[in-house]
């Protein structure tokens, strides 16, 4: 009686496992990406000792991949002071004169001190990778 049950379980499990293998073959399982750097830690439930302080965990960052090319480092160091470079990758492809105007606004209106010799490097980079003619990513 007992053995029968065990055998039944073994056979059933075998069938299920085979079916599962067949089924899983249809899926791409276990795909993980190095790009998922935006994980946030799960907060512990609040404790009474926390009193009147209300908090959340650190906000995650999702750094974009800027197009490789001359001027990328300048963009990363000067444009990312106040905002992440996702501000660039989020935009639609923009005409070259719009990119020049945006950089000009960041300097004159927003007050970002970009050295004069670096300004054209940044503008050229944006114009080389983020216009309707050349944007790829």
């Amino acid at each position, binding site marked *: 009686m007992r053995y029968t049950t065990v055998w039944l379980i073994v056979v059933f499990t075998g069938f299920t496992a085979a079916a599962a293998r067949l089924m899983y073959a*249809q899926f791409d399982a276990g795909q993980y990406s190095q790009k998922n750097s935006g994980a946030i830690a799960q907060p512990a439930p609040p404790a009474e000792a926390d009193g009147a*302080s209300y908090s959340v965990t650190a906000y995650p960052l999702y750094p974009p991949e800027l197009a490789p090319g001359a001027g990328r480092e300048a963009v990363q160091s000067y444009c990312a002071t*106040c905002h992440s470079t*996702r501000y660039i990758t989020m935009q639609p492809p923009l005409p070259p004169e719009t990119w020049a105007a945006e950089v000009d606004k960041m300097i004159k209106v927003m007050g970002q001190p970009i050295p004069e010799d670096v300004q054209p490097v940044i503008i050229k980079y944006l114009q080389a990778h983020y216009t309707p003619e050349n944007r790829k*990513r």
Partner: protein
Amino acid sequence: MNEHRRLSRRGLLQSLATAAGVAATAGFGAATNLLPQQSQVSGDEKLLPTFTGPAPNPYWNSVGPVVQYPQKFPLVLLTDRPIQLETPRHYFETAFTPNGAFYVRWHLDEIPNAVDLSVWRLSVEGSVERPLKLSMSDLTSKFKPLSVAAVNQCSGNSRSKLQPRVPGGQWGDGAMGNAKWTGASLRELLDSAKIKPDALAVQFQGLDKGKGPEGRGSHEFLKSLDLKDSVLDDSIIAYAMNDEPLPMLNGFPVRLVVPGYFATYWVKSLSFIRVLDKADENFWMKTAYRVPDTPRGNTNPEDVKGGKVRTVPITRMPVRSFIVTPNGEKKLIAQLPVIIRGIAFSGYGSVNKMEVSVDNGKSWASAQLGEGHGPYSFRTWSIAWTPPHPGRYVLAARATDGKGNVQPDEGVWNPGGYLWNRIEREQVVVGRAS
């Protein structure tokens, strides 16, 4: 948030049902026929493009990845510093948007991760006889609590639909939400501070700071309302959102609620109220968030270049409506009745007429309006439809508000990318029933 729980459970059931369906066909279906199709679904799943343009964004939401943030359900990422997150379409099936799904838009990157209410105070200063420093318990106990259901919509909602495209946050349609806001009356608070007779405007500032130099828009975010503006009488300093404390990203501990006005005035983590005796000339009033002083705020790139466009600060939200389901992702079945559902709102008073077209706007039928939650709330609507035969249909939705404003079928263009309210469309494919 029972509404929300129901929603997620339904979502879960749907995914389980889908998974079960796939499993069933994988196990017992005709393998020869199904194998290539399924590997297409799993292995080569098509993803949205990483950007849209120079044509209009053809999707309902923006195309960014879906990401996780504290106190939030997965939302669509626009930028991570400052944080800008968009609400996915399906959350608009209900009149109230769950706090966890509510969109997020900050202007500056140094925003609070923690607020200690034993230290935090809301200060009322400037041209007042009696400056105030109010704690959270002052706000909840010394002022009569008021509640209002009101839509909070980003001025740039749907910016990605403009032609030509304009720089800025490339929102789809999900930079909006509706909540029941509870808090202290702004008018009562200003009265208790006794505004001086020379005062002109009242300025609001939160706890957010930017890394730009002092005196620039990149350092502080400041917004003002004219003291003569009657919207001050409807405004609330909200400490509750849908009967819960505000999520940190939506402006904990309190935010300004300006019913009917675009969200730019709804200052988050509000901590300074400054009564001014002169006009506010800061960047966020004088340069940003301004619209052409023309019908619908419409203009064109040539007139802007020619310096011909006079601008005024953006204020009320024009009438809008959205189709939420069907969403075009799945085929409908010929002769099988479905319900077309959505939401509508206006900053100029309740939506009192809702029309739906299933022939791309050639003919219109009246939809049924859902329960009213006051003049500033989303209002749900629905209409039954039986697709007569297989093919492609273009659904359209058109709202009319209490002031008689009807949604137009023309887009709008201005350099800020504001005030989009064109009739929305949804293309659906109907398959054969047998």
